[in-house]
């Protein structure tokens, strides 16, 4: 089996792409998807190292991450729907009622 280094590198790249998506995009839906990419990147790292160590803990962690991702997606999308119903937009730059 390969050393996990390549997987970790891949994980880093995926994570970076996700981060770039979160920071650079305005579309809330795509930002949520970018978050999913980040979570997946982390899962890749977990699984790679977990199998390297022969330890199921890696899988368990990835499992938990997925659960959180599912919960996050559900709640996030629900919020999005509520916001869209209210403001007719999914542009996060227009959602600035948090300000002052």
């Amino acid at each position, binding site marked *: 089996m390969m050393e996990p280094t390549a997987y970790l590198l891949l994980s*880093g*790249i995926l994570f970076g792409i996700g981060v770039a998506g979160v920071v650079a*995009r305005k579309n809330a839906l795509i930002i949520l*998807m970018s978050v999913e990419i980040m979570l*997946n990147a982390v899962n890749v790292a977990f699984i790679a190292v977990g199998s390297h160590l022969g330890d199921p803990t890696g899988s*368990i962690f990835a499992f938990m991450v997925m659960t959180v991702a599912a919960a996050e*997606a559900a*709640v996030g999308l629900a919020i999005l729907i509520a916001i869209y119903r209210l403001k007719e937009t999914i542009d996060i730059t227009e959602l600035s009622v948090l300000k002052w």
Partner: protein
Amino acid sequence: MEPILFIIFGAIAVGGAIMVVTRKHPMSSALYLILTLFAVAALFVLRQAHFLAAIQVIVYAGAVMVLFIFVIMLINVPENKLPMERLTGLRLLGVVAAGFLILESAILARRFAMPAGSTADAGSVQAVGRALFTDYLLAFEITSVLLLAAVIGAIALAKRKI
């Protein structure tokens, strides 16, 4: 065999991810994301994490992404009302910073050094299941509560009238 498949699926994953963050329409992003998720699932299989691969497809492809697409359809923002995206100012800086983050993680990844553990079957349904229902039972139960809370929260948020 593994390196070849890793390169193939890794490339698919990265390419899909790039497409996700660059597409204008969220539906395209979603489909590319599904692609990425499948590639990641394949990578899981490569690492002998069969259970997680199956779960990845079931949870992500089967549930989360369906939810995404469902919402995209439900909201159905007209093409011309999608946010105008331009890569300027802070956004550009953010992308640069993300590039730095990739660079840093690459350096970190090269430093990875850990002796390989047992070659025991660590990713199979049996192994993960055993660990999940013994050592991590509490975490598992808490996760179920988290999901319940998310379900209730999602309903409360999205429903017009409760």
